[in-house]
């Protein structure tokens, strides 16, 4: 049976400069995780500056008032730790995981770049090159690069924040200026627009003192006003296609709008359960039918969020992606998908189907919480998006409470006349 998640004793407080702090002590292993989430992601980029939020994330590793270029990497590694950062639709995160003896160092590193990052012309030019190399590696020179997270949004969405490429166009990246960087930092990287999370092996009072010592004198600047990215759903099926010179087989992605992740959480969770019923494991409906029984596709997946769930505010995307043989038309795959959704809408799934999905979710959430990196980042993003870090520990129970009728309703809402279909065509294939 799936027991309730043990929620550890978390504490939350806010420094005078507006920095929100989450402390989640846990002494089972002598390691500590530190993360900072800034409430800005690529949806906030201005037109003409696609990719800027991610480019700026790179610049935050290039040194600060007390730290030479490369010092960040060297200090974390020579303390026995690891680090990284990543840019999401609605936030950007930075983290270190280290032996607990290095807690103060990690706080120092994060505070120094929150207070005074070294933004230089040389670093900007250099990081534009690095980001372009990263895009060549991850998007341009590999099969299914950017599929579907870059390719699907411009089909499903109409407005710039939701539709544009978060990795950025090379022309936009090349036009980024040092003054853009300064404006971006002063606008979005204020302590009042950030969440600091410390999880793992530490003494809470001591951690509080260290946080006050290192972050307390980061000057307050007001957080920018929250923007809404809401736009109406498509009023018909919209199709587009993309030629991929490296893809060995054709692929398709279907994008739907889904309930508001923040204000309609239970509806959002019903969509996650639906995704599991459709494609999680050999026994799921679409795997059984489309991979094993018929078989029309070599791979199929469904999910909420283009990077995973709980990464974005409204609007968020439900997507189904499939890779299929060249002699299978996309319409056959779509027809099978629609048929399975109609069946689920008409006849809610059986209790066992839901139990399978919720047990696997429960185990994977436990497993994530056991990895200090994902626990630290999860607490930070739930504080940032939901104002409630401990919600992370209640998700499995909330998902287990989703009913068969909720899943049927979610399936019914994925309508063929309000969706985006993106077809990926290998270069030498005839367009269908």
């Amino acid at each position: 049976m799936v027991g309730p998640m043990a929620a550890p004793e978390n504490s939350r407080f806010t420094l005078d400069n507006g920095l929100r702090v989450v402390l989640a002590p846990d002494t089972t292993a002598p390691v500590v995780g530190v993360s900072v989430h800034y409430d800005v992601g690529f949806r906030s980029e201005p037109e003409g500056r696609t990719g800027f939020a991610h480019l700026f994330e790179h610049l935050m590793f290039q040194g600060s008032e007390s730290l030479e270029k490369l010092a960040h990497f060297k200090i974390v590694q020579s303390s026995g730790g690891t680090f990284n950062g990543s840019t999401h639709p609605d936030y950007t995160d930075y983290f270190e995981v280290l032996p607990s003896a290095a807690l103060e160092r990690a706080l120092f590193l994060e505070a120094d770049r929150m207070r005074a990052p070294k933004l230089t012309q040389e670093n900007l030019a250099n990081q534009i090159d690095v980001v372009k190399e990263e895009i060549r590696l991850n998007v341009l020179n590999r099969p299914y690069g950017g599929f579907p997270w870059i390719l699907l949004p411009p089909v499903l969405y109409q407005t710039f924040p939701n539709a544009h490429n978060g990795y950025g166009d090379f022309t936009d990246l090349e036009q980024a200026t040092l003054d853009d960087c300064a404006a971006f930092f002063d606008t979005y990287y204020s302590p009042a627009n950030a969440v600091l999370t410390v999880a793992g092996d530490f003494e809470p009072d001591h951690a509080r003192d260290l946080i006050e010592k290192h972050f307390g004198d980061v000057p307050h600047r007001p957080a920018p006003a929250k923007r809404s990215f809401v736009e109406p759903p498509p009023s018909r099926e919209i199709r587009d296609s993309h030629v991929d010179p490296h893809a060995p087989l054709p692929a398709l992605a279907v994008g739907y709008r889904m309930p508001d992740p923040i204000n309609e959480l239970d509806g959002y969770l019903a969509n996650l359960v639906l995704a599991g019923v459709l494609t999680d494991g050999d026994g799921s409906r679409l795997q059984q039918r489309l991979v094993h029984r018929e078989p029309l596709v070599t791979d199929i997946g469904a999910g909420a969020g283009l990077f995973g769930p709980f990464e974005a505010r409204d609007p968020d995307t439900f997507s189904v992606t499939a890779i299929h043989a060249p002699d299978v038309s996309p319409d056959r795959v779509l027809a099978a998908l629609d048929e399975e959704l109609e069946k689920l809408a008409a006849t809610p799934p059986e209790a066992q189907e839901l139990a399978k999905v919720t047990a696997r979710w429960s185990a994977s959430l436990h497993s994530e919480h056991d990895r200090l990196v994902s626990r630290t980042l999860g607490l930070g993003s739930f504080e940032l998006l939901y104002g409630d870090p401990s919600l992370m520990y209640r998700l499995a129970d909330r998902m287990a409470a989703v009913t068969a009728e909720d899943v049927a309703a979610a399936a019914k809402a994925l309508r063929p006349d309000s969706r985006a279909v993106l077809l990926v065509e290998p270069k030498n294939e005839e367009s269908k």
Partner: protein
Amino acid sequence: MSTAAHRTAEEIGRTAGGARPVPPLGVQKAAADLSHVDTTLPNGLRVLSVRKANVPLVEVRLRIPFAGADAMHAANAEVLAETMLTGTARRDRVEIDTELALIGGELSVSVDPERLAINGNALASGLPTLFDVLADALTSASYVDDEVARESARLVERLAVSRTQPRVIAREALLKHCYGDHPVTREIPQAEDVAKVTPEQVRALHSRAVLPRGSVLVLVGDFDPQGVVGEVEKALQGWQSDASAAVLPELPVLSGGDVLLVPRSGAVQSQIRLIGQALPRTDERYAALQLANLAFGGYFSSRLVENIREDKGYTYSAHSGFEFSGSGATVGVDADTANEVTAAAVLETLYELGRIALVPPTEDEVESVRQYAVGSLVTSTASQAGLASQLAALAASGLGVEWLAGHPGRLAAVTVDDVAKAALEFFAPTRFTGVVVGDADSLAPRLAALGGFTVGEPAAS
């Protein structure tokens, strides 16, 4: 990006107080002692069970020695791994997935020339089901014709793609150059062999080679470590054989030699792969050699990375690390570079090998890598899954929890002099051989100038 008045970049990067000193490290606590049982069952299976109750999950790692000398072994083994969980005497593919899903579980199978590996996890409450499905697969996997045919076909497609990857080409060339036709060189089966695999061959391989004697099962999770051994013994009582699982023959000891330039016409990037003999974890000099390797090229702040990545920009990734096989070990040095700087990158790599041997790491360098080694061991074993994987690697070499618990102490005891001795003995450039894969027309004249290179395909197996 017009907003209200903002500071300039220069103003942002400066505060009235100026730069601040980096705080020192605090006192590091050791990881808690692990309550565990390490025993061998009557069927010859070693079971290492460790209690770690952070979350109500269990992690399972089974390692079965799985060597084979015949030419079709790699293909048969790969198909066996792909289809082992697609049906048993009692369950079909969907039933296996359903039972695992209901306990929040997953199982997966993979194989290399040395071992068959089964990895899995589940909610701790589902442990009896996990053991039952595992036992079912080990004793009665059915390899029905349809599943074998379908998975073989998928495998052929995937192999075709992977054989075009430069890294795969370099890895195969390196193994063949060093080990000729030793079975270790057949890491990736040939697509044409996979196409010939029959269900009968796979079934025969399973009954001949999926054996408990000599294998090891690592369990980590929220359970009583003694009680869980009893449960495993009961669940696996049908898994019996007097024969022992097939151990890979020891690899020949490497003693250095020419580097082979393997032509890959028109390639824009080259793969540099050097390799030398190293020490197994059981050797008393291992901790010193581990630190020497880290200082040379084993982490971001190492000499090799600072030289060819940070200083010269020849490569995005340069790395050196150990590989363990049987009772031996090797150290590999890898870098991918653009053609025009490949020869220069090789020159700098050989220079750094010579330098670490002759101008040994300083006290500061040794302290930095010592912290890194101790810290990364602590962080990588903090989660159940991390601990299980780490222990599975140790257990495959006959080691266990004691080695893990004792290693921080061994790292702490290493002196600067120990590191210098290990570096001199194991990192001298003459001890290395290897391959460079790339466009021979542009590379050959420059590499010839360095000496110690021959051009050609590695000896065919």
